[in-house]
């Protein structure tokens, strides 16, 4: 155990001693099936995942996608039915939670109600037989770090939700774990506090320098906080990457729809990519757009355009489109959101049977023209590099 006075320095070295460069957490071919009566339920199927030391990693997906089960298998609360879990290079499959160098911040925190805040935070250190003087010092330092010194002697039940959240963080981080596992850590907070805690969590992670694995169903939270994130669905990882990569270049229809509004278009490649790298695509409704794809003529493709990439203007205000994609439609819905207005536009000739609805976000900046009314004829334009072609879903 490191005996440095700086908690951050300790966290960087603790538990990752065996090899410094390998992943802090590694799941290899991990699967988990539950027996429910006569049938079996598969929570996680063949999962491969690697989290680098010091990384803020988010696992995001709808409820029932297996993200919490994945976290619980890293923590040691569930044993995988197949595959290997490695922490800092060491195989910990089958090792109980008390002998794993990770700590968990539980959903709804699971603070010990019969102990004071300070005793809650000291719990792990005392179990590890850290000398009393050092326990006192480290608990004090940690409570300072999460700004809870004033409530050290109170019971957790007397604290606000945000304070309880920070106690849970302190209780886990004080042990300087190789990785911190957070299960929907902001889920129980009200929206305003949630925003504030996002920044707080990021600050803590920077200061302690520990590996964080954050499980959430909130894609906005995952995009805002993670260095890298994995999108899960149906017990599988659908895509792993940096937030911008996952958002701008979603791997499939599911990821495109889950991480932001999808604006899905389906069509057939008409001519393969020319010198500028863009192929002409005939949408199922007859209109034509350009997109970067290697697919040859006749290939069926899905493509998406993110709502803020599309420029919306009233029909008739024709300007130079500079080779941009152009679709015409009718405003069906306009929702004023403060900084931006979200339009839903019905585009004829973009879908096979029915007109396609596209969502467009327009900044209400000084340069923006007058608001567009429902029923207005509009033209939508976007540069072809923002027509993102999806892989098979």
């Amino acid at each position, binding site marked *: 155990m490191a005996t440095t006075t700086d908690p951050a320095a300790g966290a960087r070295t603790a538990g990752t001693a065996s090899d410094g460069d390998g992943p802090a957490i590694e799941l290899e071919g991990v699967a988990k099936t539950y027996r429910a009566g006569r049938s079996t339920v598969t929570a996680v199927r063949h999962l491969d995942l690697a989290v680098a030391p010091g990384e803020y990693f988010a696992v995001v997906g709808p409820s029932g996608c297996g993200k919490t089960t994945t976290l619980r298998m890293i*923590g*040691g*609360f569930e044993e995988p039915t197949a595959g290997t879990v490695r922490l800092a290079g060491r195989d910990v499959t089958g090792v*109980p*939670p*008390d*002998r794993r160098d990770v*700590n*968990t911040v*539980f*959903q*709804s925190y*699971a*603070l*010990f*109600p*019969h*102990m004071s805040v300070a005793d809650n935070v000291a*719990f*792990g250190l005392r*179990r*590890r037989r850290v000398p009393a003087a050092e326990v006192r010092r480290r608990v004090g330092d940690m409570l300072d770090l999460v700004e809870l010194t004033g409530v050290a002697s109170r*019971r957790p*039940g*007397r604290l606000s939700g945000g304070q309880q959240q920070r106690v849970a963080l302190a*209780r*886990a981080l004080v*042990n300087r774990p190789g990785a911190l596992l957070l299960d929907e850590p902001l889920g129980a907070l009200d929206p305003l506090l949630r925003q504030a805690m996002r920044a707080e969590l990021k600050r803590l992670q920077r200061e302690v320098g520990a590996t964080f694995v954050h499980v959430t169903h909130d894609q906005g939270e995952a995009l805002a906080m993670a260095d890298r994130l994995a999108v899960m669905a149906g017990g599988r990882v659908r895509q792993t990457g940096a937030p911008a990569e996952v958002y701008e270049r979603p791997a499939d229809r599911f990821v495109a729809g889950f991480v932001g509004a999808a604006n899905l278009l389906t069509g057939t490649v008409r001519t393969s990519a020319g010198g500028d790298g863009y192929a002409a695509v005939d949408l199922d409704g007859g209109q034509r757009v350009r997109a970067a794809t290697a697919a040859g003529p006749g290939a069926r493709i899905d493509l998406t355009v993110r709502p803020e990439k599309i420029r919306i203007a009233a029909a008739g205000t024709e300007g130079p489109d500079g080779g941009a994609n152009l679709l015409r439609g009718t405003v069906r819905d306009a929702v004023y959101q403060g900084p931006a207005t979200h339009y839903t536009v019905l585009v004829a000739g973009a879908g096979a049977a029915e007109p396609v609805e596209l969502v467009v976000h327009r900044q209400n900046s000084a340069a923006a023209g007058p608001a567009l009314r429902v029923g207005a004829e509009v033209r939508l334009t976007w540069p072809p590099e923002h027509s993102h072609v999806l892989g098979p879903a």
Partner: protein
Amino acid sequence: MRPRAVPYLLALPAWLWLGVFFVLPLCGMLSVSLMTGDLLSGFTQTFHLGTYAEAVQRYRVQLLRSLLYGGSATLVCLVIGYPVAYWIAFHAGRSRGGYLLLLLLPFFVSFVLRTVAWQFVLADDGVVLGTLKDAGLLPEGARVLNSAPAVVFGLAYAFLPFMVLPIYAVLDRMDRRLVEAARDLYAGRAAAFLRVVLPYSLPGVSAGVLMTFVPASSDYVNAAVLGGPGTTMIGNVIQTQFLVNNAYPTAAALTFTLMAVLLLGILGYALAAGTERMAGGRG
């Protein structure tokens, strides 16, 4: 009607019930305990406190024995009942209701009848002892009835659910993640139990101890049915004084003494265990 009065009105039947069937008899009993006289010449109110001193002096042994038996039975209930409550709450899964029903099933039979059934089972030549003696496993003179252990185990059997249910109630509503959190923070199975589950369940243990100890100490059926002359408890004395000797003041004085002793015991216990736990509250 003012809505503010509604809760009080709703509580009225309970207050009336308590007043008519508890407070009034209690006052009557208090009055009787201070009377002098006998059944033939009648009892007159003389505010004679001496009855208390005489009664306590005379039946000191039975009073202490009651507390000892009650305490022992409570201990037996705790040792047997805690694991039962723990197991039902944590490991019985969806059949928890069934196991609780099994636990309460004997209570569908009259208290006295159950005790008499034990008398039959534990009789000197009954099914258990007789068989063991025939098999040569016990000496011919061995007996269970008419002994202190028989009374204590009878009491423990009678009041076991009063120990199990409050402990079960606390453990059942305990967030299982508390145990996981303890394991996550390097506590082994034993440490997680001792540091988290056990302290968490103490309010239930406190309630169980009280609910067992109070009725067990003042019980007279078990001592009468399973015990002998050497195991008389204070309840038996009160019963005899009331119903056989018609020494009403003595019986009433003993009743009040028992009440006072139990109340003092509860108070001391409450102070030791902490009022927060007694109320089942957890800040």
